[in-house]
């Protein structure tokens, strides 16, 4: 199968082996990816032991990448696993050119901007993900991607044209499956993506959700976006300034600030940047599933911002 062959030849770069990086590494190595390179320069601290399972108590103080490597490789000896104890910011731009896909975890806004500029320059699909306690997000920039779907034809034929801000149906082909004697159609949908920084600055939900959906929208959306204002330095974060940032984000998104809940603001202040194993399992699982999907080029990819609210177990996808 061509999809499997593509997987086998794919070269993926994973930046940072924290809670999320660990889940993503597990999932893509199990899937039988061709080559995985992991970049991480951190040393193991006690905190890591509660979110990561490729390291152990005895290894505190060692480089976490070096400690984890044999356990990652052991899951699937056939994956070409490369590790590099370094920071991606010290790499020259051309270092990234050889990769088919880049996954960035635990990155600050500034770092996301840097890696995104590189991924755009070399036309490489990029996945970004982060955790805030029981909340988490995935941001995707595939630049442009044609998703192919084959489905049984319904009474209303799929028509060409724009279907949402980032999606457009560009080709519909009808065919008949002789065995099942049913009419099918093959639909090609073009997904268009914005770079992270532009998405963040222009993000709006106006006209994208119904009134009731807006009302029920989880606070996690404005609050996760608001946390990007702090660029991963949460030392000065308090309920007052987070609320201020969130109110500004609500205005930009077209949400009512009256829906901001004090308990959510409180949770975000305490949990900003906190890594938590169950949430990293969900986010890391969803991210890896999409990576495996697009490397095999099958169904429509995530486009382009996904938010998990771990309190209600709701996980919505937004086109920002």
């Amino acid at each position, binding site marked *: 199968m061509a999809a*499997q062959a593509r997987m086998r030849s794919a070269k993926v770069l994973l930046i940072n082996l924290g809670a999320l990086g660990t889940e993503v590494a597990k999932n893509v190595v199990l899937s039988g990816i061709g080559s995985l390179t992991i970049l991480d320069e951190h040393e193991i601290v006690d905190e890591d032991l509660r979110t990561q399972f490729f390291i152990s108590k005895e290894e505190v103080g060692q480089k976490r990448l070096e400690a984890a490597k044999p356990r990652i490789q052991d899951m699937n*000896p056939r994956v070409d696993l490369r590790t590099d104890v370094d920071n991606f910011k010290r790499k020259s731009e051309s270092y990234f050119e050889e990769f088919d896909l880049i996954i960035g975890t635990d990155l600050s806004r500034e770092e996301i901007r840097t890696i995104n500029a590189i991924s755009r320059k070399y036309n490489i699909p990029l996945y970004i993900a982060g955790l805030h306690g*029981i909340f988490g997000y995935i941001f995707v920039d595939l630049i442009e991607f044609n998703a192919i779907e084959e489905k049984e034809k319904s009474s209303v034929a799929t028509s060409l044209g724009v279907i949402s801000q980032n999606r457009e149906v560009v080709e519909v082909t009808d065919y008949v499956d002789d065995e099942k004697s049913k009419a099918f159609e093959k639909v090609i949908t073009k997904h268009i993506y914005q770079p992270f920084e532009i998405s963040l600055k222009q993000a709006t939900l106006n006209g994208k959700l119904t009134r009731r959906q807006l009302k*029920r929208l989880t606070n996690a959306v404005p609050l996760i976006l608001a946390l990007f204002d702090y660029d991963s330095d949460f030392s000065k974060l308090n309920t007052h300034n987070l609320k201020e940032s969130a109110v500004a984000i609500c205005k930009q998104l077209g949400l009512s600030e009256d829906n901001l809940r004090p308990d959510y603001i409180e949770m975000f202040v305490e949990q900003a940047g906190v890594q938590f194993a169950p*949430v990293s*399992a969900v986010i890391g699982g969803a991210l890896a599933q999409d990576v495996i999907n697009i490397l095999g080029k099958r169904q429509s990819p995530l486009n382009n911002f996904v938010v998990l609210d771990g309190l209600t177990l709701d996980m*919505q996808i937004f086109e920002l």
Partner: protein
Amino acid sequence: MGDPSIVKIVGQKNYAKLRSVKVLLVGAGGIGCELLKNLVLMEFGEIHVVDLDTIDLSNLNRQFLFRQRDIKQPKATTAVRAIQHVSNSKLVAYQSNIMDTEKFPLSWFSEFSLIFNALDNLEARRYVNQTAQFLHLPLLESGTAGFDGYIQPIIPGQTECFDCTTKETPKTFPVCTIRSTPSQPIHCIVWAKNFLFSQLFASSTSVATDEDLGTEDPQEIERIKQETNELHELQEYIKSGDNSCIPDIITKLFVSDIEKLLSIENLWKNREKPTPLHNFEISNQLNTDFSSVWTLQEQVNAFAEVTKKLMKRLATEKEIEFDKDDTDTLKFVATAANIRAYVFHLPVKSLFDVKQIAGNIIPAIATTNAIIAGLSSLASLRVLNLLKHIPPTDPKDLYMAFTAKASNISSNRYLSNSQLATPNPRCPVCSIARGVISLSTSALKSITLGELLDAIRTKYNYPGEVSLVDKSTQRLLADFDFDDLLGKSLSDMKLGQGSLLLVADERDDEEELKCSAEFYLQLDATGNKLRLPEIEVLSFKPQAMSPQEDEPDYILNGNGEIIIDEDNGDSRKRELEDASEPAAKMAKLDDDAIVLLD
């Protein structure tokens, strides 16, 4: 020493509680391995893991705690050993069937604060669900099939139980049926596609012979080496590209492997023995009609011919995936399955039929298991009311969740959630009142069936016309015109520890009847002669039993997306926005779908 990250989520006080909580994890397969890892990292005080199965080669590409060297080892103990290096919890593993009432009496379950189901079959799910109902223990139910998955917290008495909605039964087969004792053609097709083909042509688990085997026991090493060598031998045949090996491959698969099975006499006590394919010959006579059933000779010829072809392809392609539209791979699977069917005296299928069946086998997906296990562990904190800032939650305000995008339910939701429903009053499981009767060993001999029945009748206000059934054996013990046994003692009736008794109101033409009640007998060493549980047995109106479907407040459009009726004022229903139906139906599959067991 506290743990900063989890303390920020649960708070200092709840962290101390979490460290003393004892949970039960049923299943250490696809979801179970992932769940165990999460529960350990979350620092639950004590985690008990039960799984009857042993590890199979086909588990390795998704059950990340298992390695090649662990094949044939018990899942539960191996999983616990593999996660020990990060564990701060007390871990206890059992290689047993959770439905073993001697090993796991009801009192054993009652030690846990929460049960996680990570099961792959309906029978055990139902059993654990019923057990949870008896003990009023919260249960976190979960399941996956391909890219579809769901989690559902069950709070007995307050929210819908596993049996409140009818379940579609996906056809699942235990590994040993596929490997050793096929009894239907489909078992042979699954064997050919998911075991044989994938090992020979698409194995993502290489056979390493110089790997650290993780044991010093010479017998163990011998066993693992033999396993490994046999597979290795077949893979070597295929890789050699040497056509003269083909008769050896056929001999290995359909003669020597079958003889090995025959030597395990226990397997054939109640089954027809397979007949090894002795004295086969390969000729050039090939059948090209895909819709007819080929003769054995035609199957063997086609198998030899297509194996030759695939060996040649493997040299350049390195790896070949099964694809029902790739005629070579289909022919290999169909002929291998059919020859195996001959050996086991089962019906043989046309290539066309095999194509249909093989195309419907849904593989287990590692990432779906990871996501679902993540949700299940996350939901547990709220079920146990351990989240900081979140006041104790009314069970009806808890959420179930299921995959939405991957299941083509919604394009703008990765997961959908919905609040838990109240118990279905017509549910055959949770509408029955349940409780534990404790009694002393001597009471078993001294109390008669009639005395027990009278005590129950008085305590719960049952009328004279009741029936009493021993559910464990489905024996009728008494009803209004069968009182012969009432004078016998409980031990005469072979009732004792773990017996299940069902009491039902048998009156006709009454406007209101008492609900049925089920009692579990538990021997009590503390000296209580007989103690009946403090439970409420409600009444119901038989007329209300006629099914009445609620109008759905959403419709499915042609693209499989859901359109909600905006004007519906029912707030409970509105919670189902963008969701379609409860998780139970989420896992619904095509009629033909087949799900592989872990």
